């Protein structure tokens, strides 16, 4: 018997009651989390359900009958496809750029002492606290003064701008409390700073970087107000939806939302399955 096992044997109440209690305790978190995801995805469920609705008029709010038509003619609303493609492009590029810039800032803030640290923190928080409408309108003014043509690049610039803060704060949470000893050990073993960063630091903060990427992607793909002011003639998915809302959002919007979600989930699932297969292969060697 190991020391831990011996200790647990002497813990009070090691009978059936205690074991059931342990069972409950072990699984209450799982049950709770399942409920959480149910709550989180409930509106999505409604959206998915209504993508199969056959609305009599233009409003898709009351269930009126099942149909595959919306999925068959998902592309049937002019402008919808180009809107979602644009949104995905911007979200992808903006989240990558913002995460890179944000990670660099986070590293500097946590690892180094420098003048202007307070001001830097303030600068990071300010965009978060500025109402979107003034953020968008004041950026518009800047672009007008610089005589910039509105379109893809102005949208991208705006998105990177408001995503940086989110990336910084997310990655910072990981860097604070990061065990520097691991890096020191690597360097003691002969690695230089860059190798250490690449092989030790980066993999360890990878979850934070991924989380920042996801968060920035989500924010970017959903942004309406700032994009509206700086999009010129280009239409992103949220702009399209808000525009359609006046006359009635077509069910194809539900289809698109569902499809993106499904594709992302499938992609992640495939990733997991590949990992499992690899682990099995490695184990069986």
């Amino acid at each position, binding site marked *: 018997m190991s020391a*831990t096992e011996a200790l647990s044997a002497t*813990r009070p109440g090691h009978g059936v009651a205690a074991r059931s209690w342990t069972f409950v305790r072990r699984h209450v*978190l799982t049950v709770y*989390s399942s409920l*959480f995801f149910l709550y*989180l*995805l409930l*509106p*999505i469920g*409604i959206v998915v359900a209504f993508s199969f609705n056959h609305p009599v008029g233009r409003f898709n*709010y009351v269930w009126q009958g099942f149909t595959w038509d919306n999925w068959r003619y998902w592309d049937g609303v002019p402008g919808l496809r180009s809107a979602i493609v644009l949104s995905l492009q911007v979200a992808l590029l903006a989240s990558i750029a913002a995460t890179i810039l944000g990670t*660099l*800032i986070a590293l*500097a*803030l946590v690892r*180094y*002492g*420098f003048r202007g640290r307070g001001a*830097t*923190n303030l*600068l990071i*928080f300010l965009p*978060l*606290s500025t*109402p*979107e*409408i*003034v953020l968008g309108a004041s*950026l518009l*003014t*800047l672009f007008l003064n610089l005589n910039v043509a509105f379109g893809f690049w102005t949208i991208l610039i705006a998105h*990177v*701008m408001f995503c*940086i803060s989110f990336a910084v704060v*997310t990655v*910072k*949470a*990981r860097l*604070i*409390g990061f065990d520097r000893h691991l890096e020191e050990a690597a360097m003691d073993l002969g690695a230089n700073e*860059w190798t250490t960063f690449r092989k030790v630091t980066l993999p*360890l903060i990878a*979850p934070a970087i991924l*989380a920042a990427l996801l*968060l920035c992607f*989500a924010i970017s793909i*959903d942004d309406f107000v700032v994009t509206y002011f700086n999009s010129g003639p280009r239409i992103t998915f*949220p702009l399209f*939806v*808000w525009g359609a*809302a006046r006359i009635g*959002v077509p069910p194809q*919007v539900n289809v698109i*939302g569902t499809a993106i*979600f499904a594709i992302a*989930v499938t992609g992640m*699932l495939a*990733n*997991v399955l590949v990992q*499992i297969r690899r682990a099995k292969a490695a184990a069986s060697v």
Partner: protein
Amino acid sequence: MAFLHRHRGLTPYLLLAPGLAWLAVFFIVPLGFLAYQSLQSGNFDVGYAFSWAWGNYWHAIRDYRGHFIRSLEYAGIATALALVVSYPVAYWIAFRGGRWKNLLLLFIVAPFFVTYLIRTLAWETILADNGFVVRTLQAVHLLGSGGRLLATSTAVVAGITYNFLPFMALPLYVSLEQIDESLIEAAQDLYASRWKAFLRVTLPLSLPGVIAGTLLTFIPAAGDFINAQLLGSPQNHMIGNVIQSKFLELTDYPAAASMSFVLMILILMAVLAYARAVGTEKLTG
């Protein structure tokens, strides 16, 4: 690399440069123009002129004090709720997620793939007066017999909480994920209960995540207006709604600008108080 070695003091500045430059050009400069606008007077018809109109700030506070307070209130409650609701799930994903972690994280941001408007409309369906939720609450007498959820402050706060859950959950996950499980085991071997181990070890180590999540939730939530507009009654409107209307409907740019600054200052004051309470080093790393 050798360059960086010799100029070690430069490293933080080099890391900060790209991100801060981006924010400086695309946020600070527009913000400066906004500050300039906030001190103008006049109206849209005759034009605006800079006149050190500090009165704009006074009027903003005097006329819309209630809205400011309400916004901080709703944002504060929503943040607390988001924290309480998300923490167990972030814990569950971090410690029990295994290879499904990334997939679960994706599920958390999934609602953002369907735009804000569609999500909120789905909630209007879920919380409808004759819907399942309201009828259940009436049955258990949590809601009066003629009661409703929509067009109340409850719906607004619930909407804000829902929309900002990922902003809370992801940073929480990020800092929980890096906690070394052996620390918790050691604590359990030394302490009698898992609960104490959680309180004394896990919770403090996850504090950077808690702080990050709180900031990322509270700050933007205070400026939100969409939930109030769609899920609230006129008595539930937030300062974001007022700023929106001052800017767009009344084209009263000095008023909108000064109100935005008042909001930002209030938020920063709240953040400072919060930082003092949790200890500044945790906030700034």
